[in-house]
């Protein structure tokens, strides 16, 4: 039964001028193993590229990684661009080391939620937690 259902589609990638590739390669592996269909855009992905890929693949969620610290600048306006492109309400997840330096994660989460992200994750979040969160977000929906 489960087997025959359409796999959920994720668009993943590392945003901005960020080249941290290791986590991205491992997430691709882990998501695929966990039964998702994954469109991996790799590193240095622009907002436009995520959106184009999400439209093309009819994605269920966009999973944004940012490691290098400039994520806060890179992520601004992403939700608005999704809305404009007709991806209203598409789940946006962000994780990695998404701001500069050791900051209170509560503040950081607030800031990114205000920017329209549905889920915001602190540094070092393991793939299992990420996958759990995706199931929570997506499993009810069809």
């Amino acid at each position, binding site marked *: 039964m489960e087997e025959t259902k359409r796999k959920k589609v994720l668009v993943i990638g590392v945003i901005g*001028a960020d*080249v941290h590739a290791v986590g991205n390669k*491992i997430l691709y592996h882990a998501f695929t193993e966990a039964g998702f269909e994954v469109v991996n855009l790799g590193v240095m992905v622009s907002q436009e590229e995520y959106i184009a890929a999400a439209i093309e693949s009819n994605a269920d969620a966009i999973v944004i990684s940012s490691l*290098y*610290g400039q994520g806060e600048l890179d992520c601004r306006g992403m939700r608005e661009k999704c809305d404009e492109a007709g991806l209203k309400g598409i789940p946006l997840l962000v994780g990695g080391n998404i701001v500069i330096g*050791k900051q209170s994660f509560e503040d950081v989460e607030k800031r990114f939620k205000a920017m329209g992200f549905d889920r915001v994750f602190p*540094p070092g979040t393991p793939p299992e937690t990420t996958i759990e969160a995706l199931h929570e977000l997506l499993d009810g929906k069809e």
Partner: protein
Amino acid sequence: MDIQNKRIPDEEFARLRQEVLAQWPTGKDVDLQEAVDYHKSMPEERIFSKKLVAAKAAHKTLVQPRAGVPVIEEHIKLMQYLEKEGEADLLPTTIDSYTRQNRYEEAENGINESLRLDRAMLNGFPAVNHGVAGCRRVIESVHTPVQVRHGTPDARLLTEITYAGGFTSYEGGGISYNLPYCKNIPMERTIRDWQYVDRLTGLYEEMGVSINREPYGPLTGTLVPPCISHSAAIIEALLAAEQGVKNITVGYGQCGNLVQDIAAIRVLEELTDEYLAKYGYNDVVVTTVLHQWMGGFPADEAKAFGVISSGSLIAALSGATKVIVKSPHEAVGIPTMEANAQGLRCTKQVVNMMADQTFNDVRLAQEMEIIRQETHCIVDKCFELGNGDIAIGVCRGVEAGALDVPFAPCRANAGLMLPCRDNEGAVRILNTGNLPFTQDLKDFHAAKINERAQFEHRAASFQMVIDDVYAIGKGRLVGRPRY
């Protein structure tokens, strides 16, 4: 693109130079002769190459952090703090990631946002935007030599501005700042652009100013076997020497196994000297740098200090000329200046406690010989692929996977080789891909990994590699099952 390992002709360089200096308004403030005069007027305490040469002679290991913030005043405060409270022997200025991708407009926005929000919004110091005068303010604020550290595929304008700005050392190279640091840039392009950087360094050298150049050793910082980073470092040293560079620091990122790491640093210096001599560059001074563990760190600060100490030990016992230091904040974010200074002081303690000791493991000779053979295989293959021209050869070598960097984001990289640890934690090669290894070397790696697989009662696979990627962050060296 047409490249070769030949000194860029003066005319061509002059033409390129005009283009480069026009890439951003601050370029117009660069005046080579004035810059050379400025360098010559600097006190010796600020000259990187001199401090390195002295340290090498005295068998001392110097200590250097990474650090950079977007706003000049804050950056000066940071440098002064690391000099005083961190007891840094050498200082860095780490460049932000927009500048690294030549996105100066975005960098400008980052500076403005940092000022507006009163917190850093860039991950480094946007030196191009700050220009020559801004750089000089930094240099003049400290009594320690300062190096530009970055990760910039096309670093030509950055080099012009920071050299004119008084920096006396410069990290990077056409391989090491391509494969780990970009996505779509062909090797020919970065080799070419770095020939420009090296030629500019050569020009300064010819005008009497010796600027230190440092190929970036650790590459992706993640399970990079010594032979890979050594090959990259040696080839970049050769390319630099051809353009007239005379003071080179080759680097290596700690892998975690004491014997392998110490063997690696020793072979690195030896082979760089050997290849430079072999190809006729006889007046280059070679020093070495050990980078403390460059992969995923434990989030806990006390544990991070343990990792930092282990790298410090290796730096001292291997006799590296300097060590690049991590901070207890590594897993979380760019360190505060306090955390950065803590990493430095911890390192200093260990380096000094080990300064009078030597490491003489019975396995050292064998490990050195393995790294020597592997590196010879790769570098010589690149020469062969370039029909004797290493600039051409390295591009072909990367394309062919003869020089293959694990976990590299760049399309130019073959990505066929898969590393993992052996049973004592040395980084070995699970899948040699297209590495031009002899059968003996392949057998050696297979045997080493097989030993571990048997010990762990599992077959060697990508899961083992993943376990190894996480291991140090989780408090181990070898990613055993069920940790």
